[in-house]
């Protein structure tokens, strides 16, 4: 599975926080608080913090629900004008081509997570291969929303 190269981000990477977390539902709330604190410290406004919180939780939820490994990884890259988050698991993986966009005329109980992440974040890259785990990278730029 190709690992996303940090150099692809425009701004210089300043600082990085890594976490390894058990694949258990009860820890998604812990990560929501952690990423809120990071985004708050960086100067994102309340609405942006909320967006980041939801997107990160969706990524973690997927790692737990679909990855089915016993743990997953998060990396926060705190740039001067962006927060970039990578959520990675070495679990079941999936075939990216087979993922459908949500369809309001044919509602399903699942399938909204990736769509929500793409809507709330500025840049999203989803990489996965069956049996080879999954990696999602999402970026939010500072001072983008008015």
């Amino acid at each position, binding site marked *: 599975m190709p690992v996303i190269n940090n150099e692809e981000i425009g701004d210089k990477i300043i600082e990085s926080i890594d976490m390894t977390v058990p694949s258990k*539902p009860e820890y998604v709330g812990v990560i929501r608080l952690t990423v809120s604190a990071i985004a708050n410290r960086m100067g994102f406004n309340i*609405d942006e913090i909320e967006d980041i919180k*939801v997107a990160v939780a969706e990524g973690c939820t997927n790692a*737990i629900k679909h990855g089915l490994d016993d743990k997953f990884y998060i990396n926060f890259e705190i740039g001067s004008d962006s927060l970039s988050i990578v959520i990675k698991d070495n679990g079941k993986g999936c075939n990216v081509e087979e993922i459908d966009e*949500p369809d309001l005329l044919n*509602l399903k109980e699942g399938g*909204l997570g990736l769509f929500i992440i793409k809507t709330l974040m500025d840049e999203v890259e989803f990489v996965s291969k069956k049996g080879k785990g999954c990696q999602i990278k999402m970026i939010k730029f500072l001072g983008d929303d008015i």
Partner: protein
Amino acid sequence: MSLVINKNFNNDKNVWNIELKGEIDIYTANELKKVLIEVVSINPQDIILNASELEYIDSTGLGVLIGVLKRLRQQGKDIHIIEAKKNVKKLFNITGLDKIFKVEG
């Protein structure tokens, strides 16, 4: 990081009033599912979800609501979501679910 659910049936209006307090995510969504499925099994009527103290919802929670709505629709009934906070409303808006659920006030 928890969810409190208060339910009661309003006999005058023939609707379920359900209050949600806290957060709906992968950790608490099952609880919500259990309560709503139970409610719909006992008496399939309109459900009014008071979300004034709901601080957070994500796709897992929306999925539960969609599942219950599908059941109710078979009986011609609906789910109304009232007094949702801005961030909760936003999730309904961006997913287009505000066109499926009755999101009010």
